[in-house]
């Protein structure tokens, strides 16, 4: 008989405890991690199993596991960069959408630029060569770097022969 009464007496305490948890917990808890949050990190990662498919759109089980891992890490407050580093440490730099700018990887970033510059230089020289050929019209009259002979004053009589010889050699 006495025991149920004691339980009844404890009931208000229980209610207070539950209410306290309900009110206090949301204030201290993290915001729920949305799919958008997960995909924000996942879009810059690639699972090695499914090449060329970003993690945010890959439908395989392996990628689903990775997205779950991202969600777990976001939930404990890890930053996007920290999560990316975790994946790099665990699975290697090939999980990144772009190779990190370090060591041999610099070649990937610099080679296209170097090739572009070389291509432009080659094209400029080619235009200069065209311009020097008899009967060829200047490709761009405003392109002064390669227009030396067109922009310069006419040669002095003594130099005429010499210039002609050089231009002939150049044409050959």
């Amino acid at each position: 008989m006495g025991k149920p009464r004691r339980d009844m007496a404890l009931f208000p305490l229980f209610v207070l405890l539950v209410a306290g948890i309900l009110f206090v917990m949301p204030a201290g808890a993290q915001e729920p991690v949305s799919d958008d949050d997960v995909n924000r990190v996942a879009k810059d990662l690639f699972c090695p199993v499914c090449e060329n498919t970003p993690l945010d759109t890959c439908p395989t089980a392996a990628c689903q596991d990775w997205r779950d891992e991202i969600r777990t890490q976001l939930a404990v407050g890890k930053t996007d960069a920290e999560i990316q580093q975790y994946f790099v440490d665990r699975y290697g730099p090939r999980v990144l959408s772009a190779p990190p700018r370090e060591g041999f990887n610099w070649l990937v970033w610099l080679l296209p630029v170097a090739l572009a510059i070389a291509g432009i230089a080659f094209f400029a020289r080619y235009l200069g060569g065209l311009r020097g050929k008899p009967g060829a019209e200047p490709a761009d009259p405003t392109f002064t770097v390669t227009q030396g002979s067109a922009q310069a004053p006419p040669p002095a009589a003594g130099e005429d022969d010499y210039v002609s010889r050089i231009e002939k050699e150049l044409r050959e």
Partner: protein
Amino acid sequence: MNESISTSTGEMDTSMPGTTAPQKKSFSLSKALIWLGVAALLALLAWGLLKAGETRPEGGASAPEFTVQFFDGYEWGEKEASSLSDFRGNVVVLNFWASWCVECRIEAELLEQTWRRYRDQGVVFLGVAYVDAEAKSLAYLNEYNITYPNGPDLGSSISGAYKITGVPETFFIGKDGTVSRYVLGPVNANVLTAEIETLLAQ
């Protein structure tokens, strides 16, 4: 005038009219730079092709060295990490697997049974979890009651060294540290036992 010609060609120095020696020197330098660039590009391309053409070690090729950091509870003795060379003198069955891999589940129980059968005869089974989330890996190992040493493929370095293209893949490594053969897909009992027996007899 001379200056303008020099600028227009980018390769001639006409400061000494009547001579052609400086012209040859400058021209050769630019040509050499171009050829050097082309050679470097070709070398890079060749290196890439060679790397891409590398295949899994087998048929007596030396097994690539690696170090595996074991999962908690799946260590080799007291060691938290081991290198392949630590097992020299043992027959090593190196198995790549993943918890998301359906075919790995086909061979999981067989691998564990065979390990228990041969563990006291100088045979070591090593499991390497490929591209797998650790929590899922541990759940998988627990599900199949696997007891042999297992660890993640950190940085995908081990799978890279063995040139695997998927999971499961199993490599048989002899006492001398050479790979006798590899099996793509789930390994069956006959192959597993026969290969271990052959390597133990060597």
